[in-house]
């Protein structure tokens, strides 16, 4: 079956072991795979969309609460995390390139770097969550609005909020945890997949022209990056330009 093969560098036809029987050509298989991944990412946008919608609604309603609560997020750590995530994405892109030019060792190294920066992101995130815990900013029984009703006592240069408005900071923090938590959850899934892909790359599975899994995972990883690139300004930066 000539259509089940591709032409290698020496001009010979080789049948790839990864070719699935129900595709006519390897090209069709690759296109279907990447198209499927794009569609999956579309469902992910809709999934996060519900949370973004809730954020926009409540930010409109409870603007003062959202403004001061947002100012309590840790911008330096958030900015560091943005840099870390973009670096991770950069290594992922290099990884895709390494697979395409069939450099096995380089691919493994790039995947390892991608993983390490991903883990670093989660580490910083965990530290931020811990800070929220210490400030009693985790929604639930231990949540405290003291920092917003009486900011002067905490050395915070903000206008104090009326108690009922201050109560609504809990919604901000819930949305913060839901959105960054859902994002972190996607990172964890990505890191698990990275371990698996690194192992397969180490066995040389992606060094003979079959790069679809690396490419598709790259799409997923960049998507997770992009979600963060929306979360960071919306949650951390949106009120920073205002005079205190």
């Amino acid at each position, binding site marked *: 079956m000539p259509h089940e093969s591709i032409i290698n560098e020496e001009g010979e036809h080789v049948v790839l072991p990864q070719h699935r029987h129900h595709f006519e050509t390897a090209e069709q298989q690759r296109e279907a795979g990447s198209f499927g991944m794009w569609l999956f990412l579309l469902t992910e946008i809709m*999934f996060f969309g519900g949370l973004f919608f809730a954020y926009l609604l409540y930010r409109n309603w409870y603007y003062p609460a959202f403004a001061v609560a947002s100012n309590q997020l840790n911008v330096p750590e958030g900015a560091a995390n943005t840099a870390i995530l973009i670096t991770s994405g950069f290594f992922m892109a290099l990884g895709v390139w390494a697979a395409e030019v069939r450099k096995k060792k380089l691919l493994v190294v790039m995947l390892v770097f991608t993983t390490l920066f991903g883990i670093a992101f989660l580490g910083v995130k965990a530290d931020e969550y811990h800070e929220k815990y210490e400030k009693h900013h985790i929604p639930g029984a231990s949540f405290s609005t003291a920092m917003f009703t009486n900011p002067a006592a905490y050395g915070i240069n903000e206008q104090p909020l009326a108690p009922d408005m201050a109560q*609504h900071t809990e*919604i901000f923090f819930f949305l913060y945890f839901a959105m960054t938590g859902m994002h972190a959850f996607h990172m964890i899934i990505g890191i698990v997949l990275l371990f698996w892909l690194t192992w397969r790359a180490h066995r040389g599975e992606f060094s003979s022209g079959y790069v679809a899994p690396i490419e598709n995972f790259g799409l997923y990883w960049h998507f997770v990056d992009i979600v963060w690139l929306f979360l960071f300004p919306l949650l951390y930066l949106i009120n920073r330009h205002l005079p205190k």
Partner: protein
Amino acid sequence: MSTPITHTIVNLPDQATAQIPKRNYINNEHGLLSWLLTGDHKRIAILYLISITFFFFIGGAFAGLIRLELLTPAPDLVSSDTYNKFFTMHGIIMIFLFLVPSVPATLGNFLIPIMIGAKDLAFPKINLLSWYLYVVGGILTLAALVLGGVDTGWTFTTPLSTHYLNTHVITAATAIFVAGFASIFTGLNFIVTIHRMRAPGMTWFRMPLFVWSNYAASILMVLGTPVLAITLVLVALERLIGIGVFDPTKGGDPLLFQHLFWFYSHPAVYIMILPGMGVISEVISTFSRKRVFGYTAVAFSSVAIALFGFFVWAHHMFIMGVSNYSALVFSLLTMLVAVPSAIKIFNWAFTLQKGSITFETPMLYAFAFIGLFTIGGLTGIFLGSLGMDIHLTETYFIVAHFHYVMVGGMLMAFLAGIHFWWPKMTGRMYPESLSKLSAVTSFIGFNLTFMPQFILGYLGMPRRYHAYPPEYQVLNVLSTAGATVLGVGFMLPLLYLGWSLKYGAIAGNNPWQATGLEWQIQSPPLTENFTEIPIVDYEAYDYEWLEKKQREEVTTVG
């Protein structure tokens, strides 16, 4: 044989010599594991068919119990709490475990790759995963039932579901969350397959309309279901740790829940009905021996329904306190959906005009669909009008309305499709006269059940109550009697279709002399459908092409 007048197009091979093909997808491999680990889209379709039939009869049993309670005005069969659990279970099972996967996951799974000339769906493993997710969702639903039930109604409306009930809301929500991903993966698989795996010559406008309508439904599944998923996550979190997003005491808004929920659940109605409309296009064309009138319009009307379907959700919330302006806009947009729906109905009617119509069972179900869906659709316009809606919403009128669309429309279409493609799936015919009887029984039973409910609703009987004033009893008795007839109408196919698996007449490749690619291969098909990928050089529903092909075959053999 003795009568020269042909009142049927059924063309079966000589039963004395005919045999089921020696190799086919059913006997290609043996053993339970070969089914549970299969990647074959046809086998997965059969797995789905068995599971959704199981859940259909469980959901149906709850419908029976509901009608039994409503036989008398007094609340005498079950307590009000139990009654609430009955209609909740009926709704959850019928919508998420039967109607949503009904046509796409069974007939669509079986037929779409064959209809476009592919060997399988693009992602066979994800297809199998989708069935397993469905099963997990089903088991969780049964768990919620066995552990004591859930009584939120299928809509999980907040704050009732988050603050006031002490039943298994989270188990049921998890079940729907998981089953939702089954639906997402089915839709994703269909879209990729239809885009990337069509046979040479199979252009978009040569595809059967069944493929078009499933494509439109897949768009809705892929874009809508994730929103339901996140909404259910939020409901579960609200119950578990009191996050406040839907809790007015913390500044949250219960209406936000309804916006998010109906953003999925209104399109979900079209997820349920669109694939059924695809079945009707195939059946009407085959049994009137004509190309579907206005093929392009019918194809695009599916996509238009999918598109409009995303912009009408707030018509479920007219009395919930949305602003007058948004109610006005959503009412107008709702009216717009009537246009593509009517395009379909009119085009089917024009297809019938001057066609050589025959009345086999699938055609009877298709006629039932057209009539009942039209009534269901037109009463939808009553409900889409703001003033009428205030009077009719939350009454039996709305119950009757959506049952006309979902049962009268979708279920009839599902049964039309099952009968139509049964010979292809199993290689054997169902018994014709018995199945005609069951089609007529279902039609009569259905109207007897739900026509009185329109009147009940108009008179003001609210939905979801287990007792009612005595003056409504006559109509309720009629409805319960109808439900019994309807139950018989649905039990019969289960029996005779099971019987036909062993004793049905051998169907041959193309008993209906239909034009689709699926009818040009053996029944039941081979594991990879085609021995050679076909090259398509004819339009959909081209009966002259078929005639020519058959003539040539005869000359070759002769």
